[in-house]
């Protein structure tokens, strides 16, 4: 039997050994769904259909995530605390890069990933279409609205929402200068002092799409005149904001605002009246994973109250949970208090991807 | 019957890329003799030696040892250097700095997997022969040039090779040491009876040490012979002037004046000089060589009919053991080297003379 680097029998080896399963590549969806007769077990305080003993035997979780280093490490920390026998390892990259990576690997016949977390629905749909996700219906799905699950259920779910408004440096922007709505970010006084995210960011794509819908195609052309600085992560944006390297950021994520404020940074957050742009953060178990039981267990954990509490309270994450029974965020604010701007037609949204990339990269000089 | 040759080199050609260094060289070496390849730098002597050693690959020709080819272009044979059973002393000594003197000398024996006791004996013996036995445990890099030279020598013959190749081994030593080492080397070679091929550009060395000399120029052999032959009877102008210094005189063959087995040459200036053909063919135009040391100078006309002429001294150059006198002879300039001369002021009229036996016809 062929062993991968960690001494576990690879799925490929199982297949080679003659287990009669069709060896399909990316093209067709995998049809390994759970037999309906199996009933969920309870581990810690949540329900799971995974074989926990087997998962602990598998002993390893490979997690591909869009979050920054500290955030991803944070998620892993949470899981590992609850399941110390399962070692965690991760790869992080901004959504665009992450998705390219996993596709390239799968195309070359490498299936090394257990769970995938993305910050954009468009690649999630794509991955689902390509049969990349494992079909697994978690017993915890009951706590989620259909809107926040894949269609059909069982491919991915919304592990949280990342809302963003405008944020600025309170020492440099005072009184009436402070922006109030989205249109205020177009003020020429912000030229050379405003930041945004790079085109690989899922949230940035959402913002581009939504504000364009709201304010017309010219909105971003005006924005381009301000020669914004683009960065990979919200931490970089707020780092610069708090030090004054940038005066204002067009895409201030609420979680980062909470984090930096708690550190004593002089930053302020603005929730425009038209609403906060938000992107779902989607998690799904990956097809042909090297540790399939661990993958399922993780999905259940992440979906559960326990996992969601972790996601919501970890300072590097501060996600807003979409679980129907979720408590308010640590700041006391509940998600429902925000007006959230989402794409309604995810298909139309996905189709705009190429246009977005071209325009956004062009704006940044690439 | 001629003794069987030990080493035979036949029509050897060696090139470096497009540049030919050795263009067709042939000679033989008999057992126990020392043959010297002599010539100016760039003549191909070192290349020839290295080709015999196996360190350069020729492009044509054949090299045989005791009749068996170690290199043959025609038969596609090229025995690697380490398998030829020859030995070599390098110009730079090539002493291995990270080993002791003992280990340096013992190397060849260790390669041949001899026993430790045998190695010890042979090494001590070899070092004794070159008077370096006291230095056996010294680190090789701490020796002086002359000492390194001796160790290199001991290393080269300790495993009793039948052939020793020398690549200008004395050229890095100072003059006095060179002169002494020359004699020591010759003695050693005789004592051990090893066939040697020796490369040098130093005339004195070649004349003192060799049984035979091969004079080379521009990748070709100019002349082969014993030191005496080459000195007395040079074949070409080059050899005449390279081996000792010589004056060259050109002129018309005056067959009508030939007498007593001598030939007569008339210079363009009208002087007639008598010389010896020594078996070479004499055409209508002749060139003869007169060694500078054979030209006599006297203030008065010496006795004798032939080869006496008046001349004028142009300048003299004091050289210690001899004085070099530049003479105007008709419209030609000659050089004479004389020992213990009375001072000759410039412009003095003198008489010069030379024994016809010493006037050698150059040619094939």
């Amino acid at each position, binding site marked *: 039997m062929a062993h991968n*680097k960690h001494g576990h029998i690879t799925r490929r080896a199982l297949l080679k050994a003659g287990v009669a399963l069709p060896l399909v590549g990316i093209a067709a969806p995998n049809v390994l769904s759970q037999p309906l007769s199996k009933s969920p077990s309870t581990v810690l305080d949540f329900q799971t259909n995974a074989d926990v003993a087997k998962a602990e035997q598998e002993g390893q979780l490979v997690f591909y995530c869009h979050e*920054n*280093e*500290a955030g991803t*490490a944070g998620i892993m920390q949470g899981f590992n605390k609850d399941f110390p026998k399962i070692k965690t390892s*991760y*790869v*992080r990259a901004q959504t*665009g*890069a992450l998705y390219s990576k996993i*596709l*390239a*690997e799968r*195309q*070359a016949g*490498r299936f*090394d990933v257990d769970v995938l977390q993305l910050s954009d629905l468009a*690649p999630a749909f794509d991955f689902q279409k390509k049969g990349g996700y494992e079909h697994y219906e978690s017993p915890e799905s009951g706590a989620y609205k259909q809107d926040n699950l894949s269609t059909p259920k069982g491919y991915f779910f919304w592990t949280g929402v990342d809302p963003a408004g405008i944020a600025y440096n309170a020492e440099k922007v005072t009184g009436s200068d402070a922006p109030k709505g989205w249109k205020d970010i177009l003020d020429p006084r912000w030229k050379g002092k405003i930041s945004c995210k790079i*085109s*690989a960011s899922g949230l940035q794509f959402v913002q581009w799409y939504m504000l364009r819908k709201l304010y017309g195609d010219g909105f971003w052309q005006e924005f381009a005149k301000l020669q914004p*600085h683009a960065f990979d*992560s919200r*931490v970089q944006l707020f*780092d*610069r904001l708090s*030090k004054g*390297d940038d005066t204002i950021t067009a895409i201030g994520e609420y979680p980062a605002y909470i984090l930096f404020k708690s*550190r*004593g940074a002089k930053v302020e957050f603005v929730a425009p009246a038209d609403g906060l742009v938000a992107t779902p953060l989607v998690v799904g178990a990956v097809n042909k994973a090297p540790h399939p039981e661990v993958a399922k267990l993780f999905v259940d954990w992440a979906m559960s109250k326990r996992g969601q509490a972790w996601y919501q309270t970890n300072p590097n994450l501060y996600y807003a949970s979409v679980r129907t029974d979720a408590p308010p965020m640590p700041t006391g604010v509940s998600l429902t208090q925000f007006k959230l701007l989402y794409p309604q037609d995810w298909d139309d949204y996905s189709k705009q991807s190429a246009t977005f990339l071209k325009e956004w*990269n062009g704006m*940044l*000089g*690439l | 019957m001629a003794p069987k040759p030990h080493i035979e080199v036949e029509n050897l050609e060696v090139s470096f890329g497009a540049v030919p260094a050795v263009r067709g060289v042939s000679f033989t070496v008999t057992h126990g003799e020392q043959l010297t390849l002599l010539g100016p730098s760039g003549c191909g002597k070192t290349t020839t030696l290295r080709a015999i050693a*196996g360190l350069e*690959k020729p492009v044509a020709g054949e090299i045989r*040892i*005791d009749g*068996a*080819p170690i290199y043959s272009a025609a038969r596609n044979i*090229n*025995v*690697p*250097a*380490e*398998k*030829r*059973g020859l*030995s*070599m002393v*390098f110009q*730079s000594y*090539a002493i*291995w700095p990270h080993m002791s003197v003992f280990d340096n000398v013992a*190397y*060849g024996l260790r*390669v041949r997997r001899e026993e430790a006791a045998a190695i010890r004996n042979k090494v001590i013996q070899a070092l004794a022969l070159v008077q370096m036995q006291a230095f056996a445990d010294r680190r090789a890099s701490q020796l002086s040039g002359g000492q390194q030279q001796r160790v*290199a020598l001991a*290393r080269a013959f300790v*495993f009793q090779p039948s052939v020793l*190749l020398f690549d200008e081994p004395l050229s890095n030593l100072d003059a006095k040491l060179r002169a002494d080492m020359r004699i020591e080397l010759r003695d050693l070679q005789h004592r051990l009876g090893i066939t040697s091929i020796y490369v040098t550009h130093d005339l004195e060395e070649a004349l003192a040490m060799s049984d035979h000399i091969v004079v080379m120029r521009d990748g070709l052999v100019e002349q082969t012979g014993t030191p005496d032959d080459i000195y007395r009877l040079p074949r070409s102008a080059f050899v005449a002037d390279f081996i000792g210094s010589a004056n060259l005189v050109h002129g018309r063959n005056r067959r009508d004046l030939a007498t007593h087995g001598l030939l007569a040459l008339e210079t363009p200036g009208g002087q007639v000089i008598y010389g010896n053909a020594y078996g070479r063919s004499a055409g209508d135009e002749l060139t003869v060589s007169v060694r500078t040391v054979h030209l006599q100078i006297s203030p008065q006309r010496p006795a004798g009919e032939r080869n006496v002429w008046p001349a004028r001294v142009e300048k003299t150059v004091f050289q210690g053991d001899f004085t070099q006198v530049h003479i105007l002879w008709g419209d030609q300039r000659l050089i004479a080297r004389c020992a213990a001369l009375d001072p000759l002021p410039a412009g003095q009229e003198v008489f010069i003379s030379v024994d016809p036996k010493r006037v050698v016809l150059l040619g094939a």
Partner: protein
Amino acid sequence: MERHARAVSAAASSTESVSAQKIAGYGVATVAAVLVLYPVFYLLQAALDVGDPQTRPPTAYGLDNFEALLNYPQIMLNTLSVSFAATLMALVIGFIMAWILTRTNVPGRLVFEQLMAVPYYLTPLLGALAWSMLGSPESGFLNQFWRALGGSGHVIDINTPYGIAWVMALFEGSVAFVMIGAVMKSMDPALEEASQVIGASRLRTMLRVTLPLVIPGVLGAAIFVFAEMLGSFAVALVLGTPNRYYVITTAIYQLIQQYPPRIQVAAAMGTSLFAVMFVMLFIYRRIVTAGSYVTITGKAFRPRVADVGRLRHLLFCVCVLYLVVSVVLPIATLLYASVQKIAVAFPAADNFTLDNFRAAMSMNAAGSALTNSLILAFATATIGIALMGLLAWLIYRSRLPGAGLIEYVVMFPQAVPRLVFAFGMMWAWLAFPIPIYGTLWLLLIAYLTVFLPLGVRTIAGVMLQVDKSLDECAQMCGASWMFRMRTISIPLLVPGLVAAWLLLFIASVRELGASILLMGPHSKVITPSIVESWFGTASELTATLALIQTFVVAAAVAVLVVVTRRVSTHVVN
């Protein structure tokens, strides 16, 4: 006599049989060729692929991607101008320091010469991070000092092309110092003395004699340094991208990070870059191969050291200033930032914290990345000297036919920026049947490949200093190739091999361009993980991480230097 004849004829009957030499020589040549050419093939294939980017192998070939390059004139221009500026600055700094340290009697010369290498060890990434904290127009410490002193605005903006060039010159420019220093040391002082004996003043001598003699060497160094600057990645990433200033390497990085990644354009960009570097290196070798490598045994020139009188003290200050700017200041800055919550020049008392250190210790990057890097460096150095030693022997000492060709193959990675090479490797090894992709093995292969020029050149330099007559003499004593290697060549080369080992170790630990693309979840290494940290964590934490890693590596290197010094002296004795 008979014995001889028999022995010779026995050997003669086997015409040149396949020897150990040939097996080793051609074997290692094949390895080198595969390592280098396999990724390049994939790179070129991607550059010429005009079909659907998602399907492999490519469906259509064409030059469209190169045409697309015309849409990015600014990037090309940026690359050339910043490299040019950096080269100029590096040459000036290098020349001045080389002059001071080899030609004047400034106190502490030998110590300074050793210390000149430290900026190189610190890596340009660290320098860029530190200078970013020092010179950002708003938050930079220097600018904060400036404002505290009453100035307005900023006195230095490190995010400009000049700023980028400055940091590049400081940290990647020590190569210029080494090369120019070598040129100055190899100059025969008699040439200058001749000039002065005739009566020329010192200045005139410098201008009319020294400078012209030194210029070919300096020119060679210039071209080499320029080629290095073209491939620079870390500095442009940290200082350039925030300001929308892209050069080819950072543009390639961004292009392949997107979804869908613009592989083909990136490949075309990379290919165009290495065409430029190839031309530069060709010119460089033309200029340089005029000289020979062999140091005439025992006859090293002793450069004439001029007594500059009281100027010594000024020059001493210049040297100290250089070290402060390139070593002390950056490290101090990072240290200062690492102990603050939000790094400012004048922190309030409650801004100090050790949280950053606590957090850093628990991060992936500190623990596993460090371990991986050290293990990888060890493996790279050890396998490297064997591989590169054999290659150096093959190219410069063996007389096997075709050896010259291998020299071009081996030097090829020099012409390709590491990032671009890794890009080709990514595709090449992804499709490889043996699953090394994403593991430390892939990084090992990548390092061995990109360090080929460095390792071979270093070992060759040492090898060529050993007179070949030492080997030939052993041959004449009857020793086979393996015996000679074991008893003569390798022992003589040990000090040089040890130095090469250390060099490879350090190069491996500081590597960024190739590693950043080829790292996998289980094969994180130091320098790229600092970059990842810069992307995704607060700058104070990044600074902390960078410091921890630098000190651990410095400690490891210090230990190794001591150990290797013992080893080489032991073997030689």
